[in-house]
């Protein structure tokens, strides 16, 4: 979960001051000029659905700023959140390249700007630029790891406290890589966090209060700081 990003929307890819920080958009000048010429920038309000599970995959979406909830329906028909995608993340790529319908639903959880590129335009772009296909491979690899770690977290963490601790640590590490302070914006509700941690909303509320009382975390509004990561890490064992 990335909480540290600018809310100043870039006007185009060539003048985007953040592209060096983004995995996909950090392209060579030639590829960047080509990338800038394809697709359109679209702004989405909180709650807007970019695509739904089962929809034909007609576009690839690259997040410029904002956060998007990626969810799927479980066997018992309930919604489960797989990840929170942030700036630089590419959405819909696996469905477009595998030529299948979207496997997941993408919904903005805050106002966001997304570059939307038509399927064939994007595939042609990858074909023209080796660096873009390399970044696409890294993006797909990241998606694969997300699904894998999600399944692993649920299967191998014995307790709800361990699964919640793992989730907070993962989000913290993603939002503040290498920084001494592990802080991120918690954009999800307790119900949604419960969904990701494989537990109930009541348990999430109870555990977050417990972690706060133990001074392992500090919560100020939507901002969560992990003060004692080693204690949380111990819970995941």
């Amino acid at each position, binding site marked *: 979960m990335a909480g540290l990003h600018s809310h100043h929307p870039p006007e185009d890819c060539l003048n985007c001051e953040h592209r060096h920080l983004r995995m996909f958009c950090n392209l060579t000048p030639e590829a960047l000029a080509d990338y800038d010429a394809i697709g359109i920038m679209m702004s989405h309000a909180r709650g807007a659905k970019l695509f739904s599970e089962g929809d034909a995959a007609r576009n690839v979406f690259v997040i410029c700023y904002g956060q998007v909830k990626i969810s799927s329906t479980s066997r018992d028909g309930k919604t489960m959140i797989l990840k929170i995608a942030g700036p630089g993340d590419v959405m819909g790529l696996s469905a477009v390249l595998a030529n299948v319908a979207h496997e997941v639903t993408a919904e903005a959880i805050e106002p966001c700007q997304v570059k939307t590129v038509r399927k064939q335009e994007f595939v042609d772009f990858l074909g023209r630029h080796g660096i873009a296909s390399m970044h696409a*491979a890294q993006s797909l690899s*990241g998606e694969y790891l997300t699904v894998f770690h999600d399944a692993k977290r649920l299967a191998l963490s014995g307790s709800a406290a361990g699964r919640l601790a793992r989730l907070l640590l993962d989000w913290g590490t993603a939002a503040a890589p290498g920084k001494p302070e592990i802080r991120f914006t918690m954009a999800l509700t307790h119900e949604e966090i419960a969904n990701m941690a494989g537990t109930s909303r009541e348990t999430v509320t109870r555990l977050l209060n417990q972690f706060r009382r133990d001074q392992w975390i500090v919560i100020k509004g939507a901002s969560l700081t992990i003060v004692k990561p080693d204690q949380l890490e111990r819970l995941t064992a």
Partner: protein
Amino acid sequence: MEAETKSGRLSTIAAHPLAELLECPPETGKLLNGTAACTVCEAGDVVFRQETECKGLYVLVSGQFVRSTERMKARLTLGPARAGELVELAAALGDGHHTYTLRALTQGTILLLTKESLQLAFESYPPLRMRLLEELAREVSRAYISCSLTRKTPARRQSAGANPG
């Protein structure tokens, strides 16, 4: 989406045959064959271990293998891998670290296409990269669908006295 529909979709995104995936002009084929490393392993041998650096793309030529993952003292068996399979596309093309551990169940042979030789092959014949990228996309799609088929959302607590943990 119904579970049956999802199961049906899994079959439409099955892995493509190896010969089709690695098909390339003779000079690119020679390049890959010339640098490929062939390893014979015995039952119980670890081909690669989770979280170690991925050296390239593994082609399972013969034998039976099993994928597993572990965290601390817990281990989870992910499933079998058989001859004819291309293994660790995600690690070879992307992240660079093994997602799981691959162990031989029987005696077998494995061909390793190193990352360096793959890179040269991609430069010599770009459609190969695109084909492998599409195969990785199918693998991601299968992972999404399998995950939603196997995962159950947690039930709400039924009584105040229940232990949710």
